[in-house]
């Protein structure tokens, strides 16, 4: 960070039992799942569109993107709003866990691997006392030209 502290803040969230982190600067806001309108004929990872204060925002299902199985939406689900160029894009996650301050130095890069998932989606891994946090590469996740899942 520019303010002299060398620390980063991470928003931690979960998909199933895996813990992920997004650098908090990359998120604009975190929303409950209100009304998602499904978009038929869209890529499978597009969960739908939502109304974010008058703006139509595409919501990406991180579960699908990372090849986790389907799961019905419940109260715990949250949508992280991130910026992609001029556009706001939502990322649907299972549950928000915490916001933690970490030392970016201790992020291990290149070791993040989840079975069956393209490791491009991850920036690295961070060890916390009791768990491992996979740092998400938001730009890569938001990229729309992902080759179709076969």
């Amino acid at each position: 960070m520019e303010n002299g502290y060398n620390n980063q803040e991470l928003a931690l969230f979960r998909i199933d039992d895996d813990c992920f982190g997004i650098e908090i600067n990359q998120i604009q806001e975190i929303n409950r799942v209100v009304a998602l309108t499904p978009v038929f004929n869209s890529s499978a990872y597009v969960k739908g569109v939502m109304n974010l204060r008058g703006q139509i925002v595409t919501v990406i299902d991180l579960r699908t993107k990372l090849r986790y199985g389907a799961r019905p939406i419940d109260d715990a689900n949250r949508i992280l709003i991130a910026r992609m160029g001029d556009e706001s894009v939502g990322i649907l996650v299972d549950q928000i866990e915490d916001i933690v301050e970490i030392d970016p130095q201790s992020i291990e890069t290149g070791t993040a691997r989840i079975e069956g998932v393209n490791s491009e989606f991850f920036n690295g891994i961070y060890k916390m006392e009791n768990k491992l946090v996979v740092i998400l590469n938001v730009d890569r996740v938001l990229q729309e030209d992902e080759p179709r899942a076969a």
Partner: protein
Amino acid sequence: MDNNQNNRLSLFLEDSREQLDRVEQYLVQIDTTQPTPETSINEIFRAIHTIKGGADFLGLDVLKTITHRTEDVLDLARKQELVLDTTVISILLEVTDLLKAILQDPENASIDTDHIVAALNTILEQDSAAETIEEPVQTEPHVTFEEPVAENIAPKDRFEYFNLDETAITEWEAQGFCIYICQVAEEVREELTARIEEIGYLIEEEQINNHQETLVLFRSVLSKSLTVRYLGVEPDNLSRRLDRNSGEEKTAERTLQAVRSPAGDIPAPQPEVPEATETQKVQTVEEEPDSEKAYVMNATNNQEDSTALNSIRVNVNLLDNLMNLAGELVLTRNQLNQNVEHWDENAINLAAQRLDTVTSELQESIMSTRMQPISIVLSRFHRLTRDVSHKLGKSVNLVLEGEEVELDKSIIENIGDPLTHLVRNAIDHGIESPEKRRQAGKNETGTIAIKARHEAGHVVIDVIDDGNGIDSQKILAEALRKGIVDRTRADEMSERELLRLIFTPGFSTATELTDLSGRGVGMDVVSTNLSRIGGTIDIDTQPGKGTQIKIKLPLTLAIVPSLLVSVSEENFAIPQVNLVELVRLSPEQSQKIEYVGDAAVMRLRGKLLPVIWLKDFLNSGDEASVPGSDTSNVIPLRREAESESGDSPGQEFTETLNVVVVAAGDFHYGIIVDALTDSEEIVVKPLGAHLRNCRGYAGATILGDGRASLILDVPGICDACQLQQQAEIANTADDLMRKAESGSGDEEKLLVLQNAESEYFGVQLAFIKRIERIRSSQIQRVGNKRVVKYGSSVIRVFELNEAIETGSREESDHAYLVIFPIGGQEVAIAVSNLVDIVEAPEAVDSSTFRQPGVQGSAIISEQITLLIDLFAIVRAIDPDLGDYAPAAKTSDSAESILVVEDSVFFQDKLSELLSGMGYDVMIAEDGQAGWETLDTNASAFDLVLMDIEMPRMDGLQLTKKLRSDNRFDELPVIMLTSLAKESDIERGKDAGADEYLVKMDEEMVRKSVLRLLDQSHQAVA
């Protein structure tokens, strides 16, 4: 640069662009009007002068140099020392282009200005000789009373009369003083200076215009308007040093009245410039560049870019009104908040009503700020017309009408290019050369009229030329060459439809696109681009007289009245512009939905309308079914059950169907939805990048309940489903099939087919079960067989040239299947075209073209037509199939009879007779064929009837052969002959025939068949 400076710069650039547009118009006007109108020159001079002033102030030196030179040239013209001929005007037009280019990018130093400056200098030098004799070079204003025009002292120029002490002035300005110059008549000078002393300090005076007038330089802390009021002078006569680039100052320059007294009571005879007064009323509202409305034509030309408005002018009254409404809105919100707090339901209702009113008004007002006169686009066509017609050596007069008609800014931005293309086209291809026009008895000068008008909530723009018109046959030839239409289709097309072919995507022709009208953009692109903004285009032409192109546009795009429909609980919006009608089909009317191939069609007022189930369309995306994806995106198929029942027409529906009939351009189709929800005005919002390639959506909107809803892209869905193609198929096939259906039972009718070019075939209609039109690619090869998947079943397809000597089926993207039953299954013969249904011809030549599968030939519609036997053809190709047929029938307990007969006439006669008796009849054309049929399936037949005289193997030989084969010991054989001589009967009996009959004697044939079959049954028993 600080903000202020930046702001000034953008104001200047904006304003200068407008000035240049006007200059251009005036130049074109001068070029076409003789003698040169003086007022036009003055207007041009003023505009250029204003730009010069601004450029100087902002330190844009390049601009200043050019404008200065131009001003010099114009000044000569103004003094009538220089004639503005076409050459000079062309140079001046080039100057405006260059200035525009500079204004587009003032920082760009690479723009080449030298040649223009040189050109201007040349003009000046040519004239300098004359000049030196007559008058000294005019950097000094030389003004006399008799020439009020020369009195124009531009406000900035007023300062040039003084040797200003810049440091002092800067200091004064820093202290808050404004520096003014007032131009007064000599006789009131003293009175004025006295007043000036009261409000400020006199700095200097300078006499001008032969001492008739004086310029008074002074400083004061008062604003300009106050100063004007206090001194009692005309605002134009007072220049303020700092506002040389502001609107106020421009007004001063433009109105340029002769200043002979402080009251300015003798206005010079200057024409009103409309903008001059407007400038005082309007303010410039900056707008975000509209990135979503991407410029469809990708114009790279600077000229074109100028219509992409970055800022628009809005009437101050309108702004005031908006401000008021915003105030109202705030008040209403307060009211609502308050009332909600106390939960006063009544008051809340009232506030809600008020909110409704205010919002509607606000919406309307804001929309009207976006409304721009179409003249913004149309005015530049003067220049375009001039340039293009000069280049082509044609003489064209452009007439504009309805320039005041207003359209939404986004539409204005998008019609520029299509219109440009149409005008270029009209000049290039429409208007003839002067000689040709003279020969045709027309005025040598062609006329192109662009007329805009309101019509029923739309704006209609007509582009009319009085040129040569369009040759529809040329269009047709091109369309045929490109494969846009086929010959049969083309023959049915009306003249108008033929013309419309030029709008078909992919029509643009290299031959038609010249450098001028081309730019790689054809009429099809014009049409596509217009339809993208909800517009339509129509064309009408009269050969030799001219062409009229009619463009219809919606007034606005941002807010769209729409129909809301729902499918599986989700709402979708269908823009009302696309809406044609709503049709409700009750379950009893379900037979109105029919199937042609896999495509559903609805019979509406006698015509077939393709329909789609919105549910099916939405689920058709292959990606939604990716494994692991959430199934919530998949709507259960309503036609699940159907995939089993296949495609049986007239399928029953248990619930009422809502069919929304929509129009994609001229093409109509139906969308079947679950329910019609509401009609609402929606605000169109763009979809995100992830959904950009997602077909079927035109955008999204937010409904009253706050949910996002998708807007259906009516033309897009049409394209995605290839509905237009389907409709064509359905309607062509429908015509013939209906003819065929109505003729069913009438065995005398023949269906005429075409396969290879000029090869026609006739098929007895009675044998045909139905006809399908398919894409050629649907015919697949499986092993050595051809099949077509038809619903859930597979149909074998045969080609005529597999069986008979004929050319192979014409290469085409579609084919017709003539489907008929054989042996309990359906098979099809593929042909390239259906031609007609005719009465069976009386004269059949059964010898010339005789071959297996061909019964004979006849002349039908002056074409030699081969009469074919579908069954024989199929059998010839695949004997198994032919043998399979009787076997299936025998199991049905019907006995099978083989008729071995070479005469078509008797084949028909006998098969008619025998099938009338309830037998299955197979035909073999000669003894050889009869033997082959029997040999391959010895037990299939219960009886054989045969002719004696036959090619290849006659009846006697066949009978002997049968009798020598013990498989056929029990097979009764009846010999038939037209000659029943004793000797013949003996020969037949010798050969082993059971009966010997005269063919014509039906009764005898019948009795013998019955008797012999009865005998053989008993023998088996």
